[in-house]
C-alpha cells in the first residue's frame, strides 16, 4: 500500500531560523496516524467510554477536557458524546471496532487532520498568538485538551509531557502552518 502524503508536504524541508541567538519554538509533524471517533448515545455514555478505553489500551476514561496517554495512544473526550482514539501508527480500516448502532457509532477520521507538535520555551507564547486559551502550567497542565478556534477554524489542542499537540483540518493545515512560522520568526524556530 502506498505511503500517505502530508498536507505540509510543500513545507517539508528542514527549516531553521534563530533570533537573538535562540530557537524558541520547534515544530514537527506526526505523519501517519490513526484517529478513530467513537460516539455514544446519552444512555450508553459509560459503556461506550469503556469500549473506547479498551481500544486505547488505557485504564480509565478521561473527563471532559482531559486526555490519557498510553504508549503511542491517546484517548480524548472531545465532545460530550464523542471520544477520539489517537494512535501514532496508521491502522487498517478493518481493525476498527464494529459499529453497533444501539451502542453508538464509530468513524475513521485518520486522514482528515494534520498532527503538529509544538515544543520549546516559546511554544505557549507562539500558540497564544492565535489560540484564546490560557496555556499556563496552572490552567493547562499536562493531559489537558481543548477544542478551540484559530483564525475562525476549529482545532484540537492537547498537552503531553514534551509538547503541545494540535490537530488542524487537513485542508487548512498549510495555511495555518504558514501563520505559525511567520509568527515564530521573532522567537527563532525549526521544523523537522
Amino acid at each position, binding site marked *: *500500500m*502506498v505511503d*500517505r*502524503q*502530508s*498536507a505540509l*508536504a*510543500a513545507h517539508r524541508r528542514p527549516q531553521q*531560523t534563530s*533570533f537573538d541567538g535562540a530557537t524558541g519554538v520547534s515544530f514537527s509533524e506526526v505523519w*501517519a496516524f490513526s484517529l478513530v*471517533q467513537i*460516539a455514544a*448515545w446519552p444512555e450508553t455514555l459509560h459503556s461506550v467510554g469503556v469500549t473506547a478505553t479498551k481500544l486505547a489500551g488505557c485504564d480509565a476514561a478521561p473527563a471532559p477536557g482531559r486526555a490519557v496517554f498510553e504508549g503511542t495512544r491517546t484517548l480524548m473526550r472531545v465532545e460530550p*458524546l*464523542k471520544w477520539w482514539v489517537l494512535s501514532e501508527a496508521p491502522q487498517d*480500516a478493518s481493525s476498527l471496532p464494529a*459499529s453497533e*448502532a*444501539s451502542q*453508538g*457509532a464509530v*468513524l*475513521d*477520521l*485518520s*486522514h*482528515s*487532520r494534520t498532527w503538529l507538535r509544538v515544543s520549546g520555551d516559546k511554544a505557549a*507564547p507562539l500558540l*497564544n*498568538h*492565535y*489560540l*484564546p*486559551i*490560557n496555556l*499556563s502550567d*496552572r*490552567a493547562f497542565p499536562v493531559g489537558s485538551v481543548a477544542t478551540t478556534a484559530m*483564525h*475562525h*477554524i476549529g482545532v484540537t489542542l492537547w498537552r503531553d509531557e514534551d509538547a503541545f499537540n494540535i490537530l488542524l*483540518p*487537513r*485542508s*487548512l493545515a*498549510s*495555511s*495555518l502552518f*504558514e*501563520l505559525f512560522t*511567520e*509568527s515564530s*520568526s*521573532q522567537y527563532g524556530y525549526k521544523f523537522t
Partner: protein
Amino acid sequence: MTARRLDHGGRINRAHPLSFTFDGNTFRGYKGDTLASALMANNETVLGRSFKYHRPRGIMSAGVEESGAIVTVGRDASREPNVKAPMQELYEGLSAEGQNAWPNVRFDLGAINGLFSRFFAAGFYYKTFMGLPPFEWGHGTRLWMLYEKLIRKAAGMGSASREPDPDCYDHVHAFCDVLVVGSGPAGLTAALTAAEAGRDVILVEQDFELGGDTLSDPSREIERAQLVDALAKAGVRIMPRTTAFGLYDHGTAGLLERVTDHVADPADQLPRQRFWTVRSDATILATGALERSIAFDNNDRPGVMTAAAARSYLNRFGVLPGQKIVIATNNDSVHHTAVALASAGADVTLADIRKHGASDLPADIELREGVAPLKVHGRSGVEAVAFASASGNNWSAAGQTDCDLLLVSGGWSPVVNLSSHRGAKPAWNAELACFLPGLTNEPIYHAGSAAGIWEYEACKASGEWAATAALGEATAPPQPGGWSTPIKPLYEVRLPEAKTKAFVDFQHDVTGDDVRLAQQEGFVSVEHLKRYTTLGMATDQGKMGNVIGLALMADALGKDIPDAGTTRFRPPYTPVSIGALAGRNVGHHFKPLRRTPLHDWNLKHGATMTEAGPWHRPWYFAKTGEVIDEAYVREASTVRKTVGICDVSSLGKIAVQGPDAAEFLNRVYSNGFAKLPIGKARYGIMLRDDGFVMDDGTTWRLGETEFLMTTTTTNAGKVMVFMEELLQTRWPDLKVHVSSVSDEWAAVSVAGPKARATIAACLAEGEYISNEALPFMGVRKITLANGIPGLIARISFSGELAYELYVPAGHGAAMMDLLWPEAERQGGCLYGLEALGTLRIEKGHVTGAELDGRVTIDDAGLGKMASTKKPFIGSALRQRPDLLRHDRPQLVGIFPKNPGQTFKGGAILCADGEVSGFGEGWITGVTHSPMFGHWIGIGFISGGHTAWAGKTVIASDLTRSEDVEVEIVSPHMYDPEGVKMHG
C-alpha cells in the same frame, strides 16, 4: 520661551547622544528624551499649526493629551501622522515634520484662515454646505460642490502614506488574575500587593519607564526603583510601552504594545506592534489624572503649557522650559513646580486666583494672589501675560507681566475613560472640581489620582486597597482629595462682552465663544454640543477640553455641571493603528486558504486555480498557448466525447450515523430517504424552515445506519450546523450523530463515455464496475490497483456516464497517479470549474448560482422532489400561496436568437419592447456550448419556458453591454432524457 538643556539633572543618558531631524533641520538629543523634550531643549517653539485657523502651536503638555506639538514621524511607507511629540521616544536618525502648514509650520500661508475666523465658527460645516456664509449665498444651487473639493483638500491634520504598510503586526491572547493599568505609585503598589498574595499579575504602562509622576520627582527615585525591582522579583509580567486602550465585556481588555516604534533599525522578524487581548479576573485602574488648562484669550500660543508638564521637562529631561516664568493656578499642585523652576535658575511669578492659597514659598518667587490669566501677548511665542481679578461676577483687568513661559493649572481630571467604557457613568465632585470614576458592579477598582487622590502616600495606600479589593476582601475605599487648600473652580477668564480667542478644544480650534454660539442656536444637549462644535472629537478625544467645555455649557444653560451631562467615552483611549487591529490577517492570510488533497498535484499538471469560497479549485488546465476560452471548450467537449477527470474534493461531506439516521434524513430532505436501499445514492433537496431551498446534494447509504451526505462546497458548514441544531434543540430523541468528513476524503469525478473503461483499468483484481455490478446511482466500497481503499458512486453532474471516486485524503495524489495516465491513454483530459459549469448548464442542473436563497423547489423545476407522502423541514411554509404561484420566476434555458451573439450572467430578461424596471427574470450562468456550437445561458423568467414559447425576449445589461434578443427554452437543453448517464 527661551528653553535650554541644563548641564545636569534629568533621567536622560547624557553619555548617549542622538541626532534627529525636524523639518529637515538636524538637532541633538539624548537617549531617554522624547521628541518633545529634545525639541524643547533646542528651543524649537513652533511645532504645528492649528486645524482651522492655522495658528502657531507649540508644546502644551508632557503626555497623551498633547494638543499642540502634533507632528508626522517617519518617512515614505512608514510615515505616521498626528504623533504627539511628548509620546514619541527619541531614537538615532528619527525624522519628523510639522503638519497642516505650507510651506512649513514656522511660516504658514494657511494662517490667512485666521482672517476669516468668523466663518469657521461652530457649525460651519453644516452652514457652509447650505450656501456661502454669512448669508448662505447660493443656497439651493449646487454651488457648494465647487468649494467642497477645496475644503476637503484643506481638511485634516497630518496626511497618511498611500503606500502599503511595510510592517507586520501580531495579535496575542493573554490571561491573568489581576490586570493593573498604570505604574505610578498607586499602580506599582497595587501590582506588588497582588503579586505577593500569590496572584498572576500583568502591569501595563504606556510610557517607556515605570513610575508615572514619580519620574518627575527626584526625591522619590529610590523608592520607585525599589518598587520596580520588587515587582520583577515577585513575577509580575511588566509591559512598558503598552497602552490599555479599552475595556470590554467580561473582564476583557485591549492593549496596544509598541514593539519597535522607538527603535532606529528594527529587526525584520519583530512585529512593529502587538495587539493584546487580555482576560483578567479583576482590573485595577491606576491611570492617574490629567491637568486642565483654563480658557482665556490666546491661551494657545507657543509657550503656554500645563504646570506639571514643566516639572516633567525639568526633572525628567533636564530641560528648563523658560527663563521668565509665570505660573497661574487655582489649586495646590503647582507648589513643587514653582520651587523646582526657581532652584534651576528661572524667574518665577506665581499667580493664584485664591487668597491664602500658596504657602511656604521661597522668597525668590513672586506671589500675586487673587488674579488669573486674562490674555497672552505675543504671536509665535509668549511675550507677556495680562491678568484679571474677579469682582463679583465679573472680571476686571489687573495689570500685566512680561514673561517667556506661562504655566497654567486649572485643575485635575482623573482618567476615568476605561471604566466609562464599561458604562460606569463618571460622577461630578464639586469640592474637587472634577469627575470621579462611576460606580460599577464589575471587578474594576480605581487607585491613586484616577480615584481623585492627590497625595503620594495616600496614592500608595489606595493601590494597596485596590489590590485587596481585587482579591475579594471588601473594605471601605479611601477618600478622594488631599489638597490642604481647596481648589477654586475656574474655567474661563474674560472681560464682559469681550470677543476672545480662548480655546477649549485646541486640536479642533473650538473656542469658548463657539460653545456659547452652539447653545444660542439651540444645541443644548451635551451630545449636540459635542457634534455641532466638534469639541472632544479630535485625536485627544477631549482630554484637554471636555471639562471646560461642559462647564461653559452648563454656565450658558444656567445649570450645574452634573446636570449638563457627559458623553460616553468609547475605546480606544488613544489612537490604535489599523495594522495592529488587522494583525497577520492581511494579504493572502486575510482569510485562510483551503486546499484540496490534490492541490499540489493539480498545479503540477497545469491547473490555473480560482477561488471558490475559501478554497482554491482548478479553473482550467490550459495546454501550451491556450487561453481560458479555448481550454474550457476543449475540456467540456472531451468529457462529452471521451473522458475527463475533475477534482471535487471541496464538496461538503458529512457522516450521518445511528439507528434513526434514515428517519432524520427523511425529515430534512424534501424527497424520501427512509427507504433508500443500502448501496444506493440519491439526489436530495433541503429546504429552510421558511420553505425556500437551502442546499442540494447526494446522500449515499453505506449501511443500515451509515450514510454519507454530500453538500455544495459553500454550504457544507451551514448544513452541518443546521443538522446539529435540529438534533440537539428540536429532536433530541433521535439517535443520530453527524460528523464532518469533508477533509477525510479526496474525491474526483470521472465523466464521459470512456469513464467506466478508465476506472476499470485502475482497480484491484476482482473489482468490477459493469452496469450490473454498479448500476446508476449505485454506491460501494472499492479497492484500487495500488491497494488504496475507497468508495465509488455512480453519480453524474455532467450528464455523462460518470462516477465519483473517493479515497482517504492522504492517498489522493496516489489515486491520480493511477487514474490520469489511463485517462490520458484513452484520449481524455483533466477539467476544471469552468468546463464543469459548461457541462451542467447544458444539462440545466442547478448550483448555488440558482439556489441563491430566494428560490423555491418549484421555481427550480424540481417540484416533483417535494414529497406529498411525508412532511419535512420547510414543507409547511412552502405552501404559502405566494410561493406556489405559477407566474413566479422559474428555471429556464436561454439561447441567443442570433447564434453569433453572447450575453452575460446577471443580465435582466425583459419582454420585447418592455425593457424597464426589474424585467421578467434574470440570467444566472452563461457559457459557450460545444454541443450546440453557440452561446447558451441558464436563469429564471416568470412563468417558465412554456409562458415564453415563440416570444422574443431581451437580455438587457445596462452597465456592461448592448441588449441581445434571446429565446427561452427548457433548461434541460442537452440530452433531456438523460440517456447518456444511464449507459
